[in-house]
């Protein structure tokens, strides 16, 4: 039992930060996987599919993340599906991330000029080949800055699942505060750890946005 704020407390918080990182990574991988599929279907799918995905994106983007988390945590468990906080946290964060990343990536695909499609078309490439060899490599490079930028949002978003009791960095801070009654030290340290994770990502994101050259560095 920790009684006052010291090295032990910092260790405790860093263990919490480990969970924050793990949850962020999971969210990015799972959310990113669906986001890629959604972004492609949103631009190239048949009309009903495009509309359905647009609707999904609009609805999720108009709902607070906390409510998405609550719906996953309380709501679904009442339907007989018992989720531990870990799963509810992962699912809700992934859903939220999918909606935003799909939108960002669609923007990147649509930013590639129509003439690039046409040139590939005229060379008799199939739709899939056009995507694979011409459009996606270019869209990927444009997307790097915004994608890394959104990773910052993901890391920060994971703090919300503290409110359903998942012990990541923020929840660890709450617990520590209850033990030490030193909220100023505790939350300042928590903030510092988040900053140490997020700032390098923000910095990298700005760098990538600044470097708008489409061709690879050589």
């Amino acid at each position, binding site marked *: 039992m920790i009684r006052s704020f010291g090295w032990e407390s910092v260790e405790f918080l860093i263990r919490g930060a480990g969970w924050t990182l793990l949850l962020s990574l999971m969210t990015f991988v799972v959310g990113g996987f669906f986001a890629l599929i959604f972004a492609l279907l949103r631009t190239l799918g048949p009309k009903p599919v495009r509309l359905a995905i647009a609707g999904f994106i609009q609805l999720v*983007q108009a709902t607070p993340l906390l409510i998405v988390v609550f*719906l996953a945590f309380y709501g679904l468990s009442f339907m007989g599906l018992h989720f531990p906080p870990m799963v509810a946290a992962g699912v809700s964060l992934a859903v939220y991330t999918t909606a935003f990343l799909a939108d960002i990536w669609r923007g990147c695909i649509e930013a590639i000029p129509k003439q690039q499609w046409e040139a590939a078309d005229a060379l008799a490439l199939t739709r899939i080949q056009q995507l694979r060899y011409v459009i996606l490599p270019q869209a990927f490079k444009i997307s790097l800055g915004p994608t890394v930028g959104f990773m910052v949002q993901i890391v920060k978003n994971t703090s919300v699942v503290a409110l359903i009791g998942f012990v990541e960095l923020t929840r660890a801070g709450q617990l520590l505060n209850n033990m030490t009654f030193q909220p100023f030290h505790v939350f300042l340290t928590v903030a510092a750890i988040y900053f140490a994770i997020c700032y390098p990502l923000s910095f990298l994101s700005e760098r990538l946005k600044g470097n708008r050259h489409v061709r690879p560095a050589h």
Partner: protein
Amino acid sequence: MAYQMNFAPVMALAPQLVEGALNTLILSGQAIVAGLAIGIVGAVSRTEGPRWLDRAVGVYVELFRNTPLLVQLFLIFFGLPYIGIRLSANMAAIIAIALNLGAYSTEILRAGLQAIPRTQVEAGLALGLSRLQVVRYVVIIPALRIIYPALTGQLTLTLLGSSIASAISATELTAAGARIESTTFRSLETFLCIAVIYITMTFAFRFVYWLVGLWLFRRKAPPKPSLIADVTEVSRAGA
């Protein structure tokens, strides 16, 4: 076993939902006014102020953009009393959200100011307009037009982000929902209702932004509103 949805107990408390929604509008409205004020001061400081001020505002922006709103809220609500500043839950929420929005809007507004070519300003000055008149007649509308999607997107995120204030039991919609959930035990129904209310408010906000945009940019249609403000639009506006 299939779960039977029953909205009746939640609907019986509908007045609490309405009240919660109004409180969310009031809370985020106050935070938006304060946050935009911070953003205007911040953006002007960064573009027109001395180097040290630009640096100082830059530090503020990075600190608040790279830490979660929830932690900012905890630090202000639980942490500040430790150094002798005691705030009500609502006041703490308004300050936290305003400071958060202030950081984002500083960067958005700065991007807008920097997007206006110097030649436009010079042309205005050459016509004998004062600096203030140049800002009023030459800079503001085109700058606002460029950043309008990012700015309105950020305001929408602020409205939605205010649900975080429920963590310190500020009076707003999500906290009202949590109370209803704990008396009715109808979690799914409660949070579905809450979600619908937020979605409705968001679309209503966007409609208002659209109308305001039509009026502001009478000569040209405003760009499409966006929610992914800080990650894509600003980077384009700033490029």
